[in-house]
């Protein structure tokens, strides 16, 4: 971890307070007011908009292989998405991904 202890605590406190304020926003400060539809329409997509972008480079260029694409990890990522999507379950997605990752690492190396 390149960050100093002080900066790590700044991140923890900043993220904690910031996340609380997001959670509290309408319940607390703004009261009984409706969110404008255009804003709701954007907020609906925050998890599916941010997380895939975060993982895509990690899947294609894993640190563990020095940034070279790795067959076992690519297959594991595909298995996770397919199982999670068709079973509509995070648990099945994770299990499929882990199973394919270990099978791939064992067979392909």
């Amino acid at each position, binding site marked *: *971890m390149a960050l100093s202890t002080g900066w790590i605590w700044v991140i923890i406190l900043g*993220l904690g307070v*910031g996340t609380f304020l997001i959670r509290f926003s309408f319940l607390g400060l703004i009261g009984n007011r409706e969110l404008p539809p255009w804003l709701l329409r954007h907020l609906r997509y925050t998890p599916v908009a*941010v*997380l*895939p972008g*975060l993982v895509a480079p990690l899947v294609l260029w894993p640190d563990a292989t020095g940034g070279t694409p790795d067959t076992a990890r690519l297959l594991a990522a595909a298995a996770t998405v397919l199982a999670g999507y068709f079973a509509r379950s995070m648990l099945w*997605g994770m299990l499929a991904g882990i199973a394919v990752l270990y099978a791939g690492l064992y067979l392909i190396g």
Partner: protein
Amino acid sequence: MTPRAAFLRGAGHSLPFIIIMVPFSMLFGVVAAEAGLPLAETLAFSVMVVAGASQFTALQLMQDGASVFMVLAASLAVNLRLAMYSAALVPYLGAAPLWQRVLIAYCNVDQTYTLAQVEYARRDHPLPARVAYFIGSATPLFLTWFVFTWVGAAVGAQIPDAFALDFAVPIAFLAMVAPALRTAAHKAAAVTSVAVALAFAWLPSGLGVIVAGLAAMAVGAQVELWLERHGKWR
């Protein structure tokens, strides 16, 4: 229904979520320990933030050497959806006293929100019972989150490299996103996010993700509008 009964009912309803919460919170502890984050900091993350996806995001970007500002911006962006939950809870919980709304806000996560929406739509509880149900559903989940973060952090550093823990976070994130790809708009947003993040991977750590997130939110919203106009939304 008395507040006490509602609290227990909420706690009972939350139990199925624990199956996924145990490995997920342990994973955070393990990954944090592997990254060299001390135990106190790891636990503080889980207690103060209580939002898995953003905790993993922060951890990943901290390891990538992103600036403090980028770490905070990208991790908070992941949590913006909670504002939507906050707004949706107002008709049911907005009349509660301030200290209760503070507590409700702290307990406002994907699982408690989902449970509350279903319960409030199905049963007409008085306000104190609604509040108690919400806090009740959060209690087992939050305790699990804290305890198993600690367990994961305690065993974390001893797990050998052969287990390829480097890939645990991508698998966890993909498993979280895949079931959420319910509509064409969600799929378009996810594809946009991947494409833009890869195209902007050369930007300083964290910035590419933020650009990708904004672009993907806009695409999701536009596809939703288009589907709505053509009578294909919902």
